[in-house]
């Protein structure tokens, strides 16, 4: 990165789940106030805010948040970048601090999705008396089901199946076992939306959504928010010892979009941009995948987790099945992945996800993860991907 390191000094996430009594501003406020408290700061210290919210992208949630917790006139950037929205909000805060525009930045991600149902499915078009071509392909009706699928569980199922076609070794059972791991992990995370352990049989015999993804193998729509306070080196030095000793270094912060690859406009290529982001992040941090003590990656579906073992280079190219079968990504394995329970159990309030995964790493590096603590964790990686596509990778290190 540049001359000055960037540090996380305040971090918080709400419990993910159903919050019927509270709106997005309530949830964003809860996480933001708690993150400020964690950093021993108030809104008067903050120089810039990046705020992510996907479902109300035009509503100025950042300004609404300020009206609830402190209107100081600072610049607010409301961002939206699919499931990478939270990571994008954090990138905005980090870029502003790195650019020297301010010493202290705040990032917030918030979403209310409980009961939103299946995302990516367009409703039926109004019936016309005659065939009317419309859209970029001149389609005379909804392409869903007619030309394959665009629904998220189906798209990500195909992404996992494609990996199986390329390298072999995948099966319905293998993908279900990945889900079994994450649900087992979730039992130790009190902030997860679902903390239920499932047997492999229960997962495989649950409702099939898009083969091979059954319902527990899909991320849960839920409500939640996460917030983070970042500062540069010089600011950190001026802060109390109690804040400094819990500071976590951002050794790499990368956001990529999907470069051209043959077929990427037919089935989204979530691999190349993730591999690119990981490569850049390892280079920025001067850290390799072998140095990571834990990883939070974007398991929006069980089929997605498999391909990202490979994309993040946690295994050799083509070796994701062997990597999983070795037991490495279980919390007592050599490379714990998604000890939070992942999106399949922790839940996936879209814009909060890209900050909440970083919060999980921060919590372990601070040694504050309670029952699910990865003992002695010093380095962690958080990955998020938004279809379309955008990929965020952050590498964090415990303060020396």
């Amino acid at each position, binding site marked *: 990165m540049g001359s000055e390191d960037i540090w996380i000094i305040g971090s918080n996430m709400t419990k993910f789940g159903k919050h019927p009594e509270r709106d997005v501003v309530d949830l964003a406020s809860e996480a933001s106030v708690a993150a400020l408290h964690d950093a021993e700061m108030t809104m008067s210290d903050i120089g810039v805010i990046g705020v992510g919210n996907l479902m109300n992208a035009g509503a100025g949630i950042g300004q609404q948040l300020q009206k609830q917790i402190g209107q100081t006139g600072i610049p607010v950037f409301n961002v939206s970048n699919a499931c990478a929205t939270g990571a994008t909000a954090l990138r905005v805060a980090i870029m502003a601090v790195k650019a020297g525009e301010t010493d202290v930045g705040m990032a917030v991600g918030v979403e209310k999705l409980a009961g939103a149902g299946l995302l990516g499915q367009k409703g039926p078009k109004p019936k016309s008396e005659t065939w009317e071509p419309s859209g970029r392909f001149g389609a005379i009706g909804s392409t869903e089901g007619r030309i394959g699928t665009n629904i998220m569980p189906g798209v990500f199922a195909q992404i996992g199946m494609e990996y199986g076609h390329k390298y072999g070794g995948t099966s319905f059972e293998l993908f279900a076992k990945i889900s079994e791991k994450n649900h087992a992990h979730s039992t130790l995370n009190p902030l997860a939306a679902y903390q239920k352990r499932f047997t492999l049989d229960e997962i495989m015999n649950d409702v099939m959504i898009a083969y091979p993804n059954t319902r527990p193998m899909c991320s849960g729509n839920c409500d939640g928010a996460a917030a983070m306070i970042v500062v540069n080196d010089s600011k950190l030095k001026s802060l109390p010892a109690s804040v400094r000793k819990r500071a976590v270094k951002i050794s790499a912060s990368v956001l990529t979009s999907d470069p*051209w690859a043959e*077929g990427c406009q037919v089935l989204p290529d979530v691999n190349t941009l993730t591999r690119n982001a990981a490569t850049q992040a390892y280079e920025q941090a001067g850290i390799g995948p072998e140095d990571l003590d834990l990883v939070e990656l974007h398991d929006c579906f069980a089929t997605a987790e498999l391909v990202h073992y490979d994309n993040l280079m946690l295994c050799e190219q083509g070796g994701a099945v062997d990597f999983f079968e070795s037991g490495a990504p279980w919390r007592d394995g050599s490379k714990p992945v998604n000890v939070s329970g992942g999106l399949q159990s922790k839940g996936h309030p879209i814009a909060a996800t890209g900050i909440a995964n970083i919060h999980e790493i921060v919590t372990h590096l601070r040694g504050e993860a309670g029952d699910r603590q990865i003992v002695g964790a010093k380095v962690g990686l958080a990955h998020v991907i938004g279809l379309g596509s955008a990929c965020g990778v952050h590498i964090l290190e415990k303060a020396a």
Partner: protein
Amino acid sequence: MAESDVTGSMEQVPFVDYLVLGEEPYLRANECQNCQARFFDRRNACASCFGNEFTNVKVATIGEITSFTIVEMGPMPYVSAIVDCDGTPVRCTLTGVEASPEAVQLGMKVELTTYSMGEDSGGTEAIAFGFAPTK
């Protein structure tokens, strides 16, 4: 009867504009003249090399399944597949095969098929495409 002559030359529209109807229907791609990247939508420039000259090309009508899923949400399960048509990936719904993991295999050979979606109030018939196991 005069009516049957009319029916015989009934007007048809393709479900999407890249499906070309006729004796031997095929999918049409816009191919970049510079780098040969292929696209199914209208283009302003090439996403790969930024070139702006394209040629209409015929995509191979036989291919191999490189990925699939069976979508079980909704009234009828269906198989969505990615088919590698001689180097050009195509997304489609499989036809002529049961929507079950036992009936579909990765690497399976499939070919382009077309079917009628029915007529609109003006008597125009819509034709959609799918891919079905090769015979």
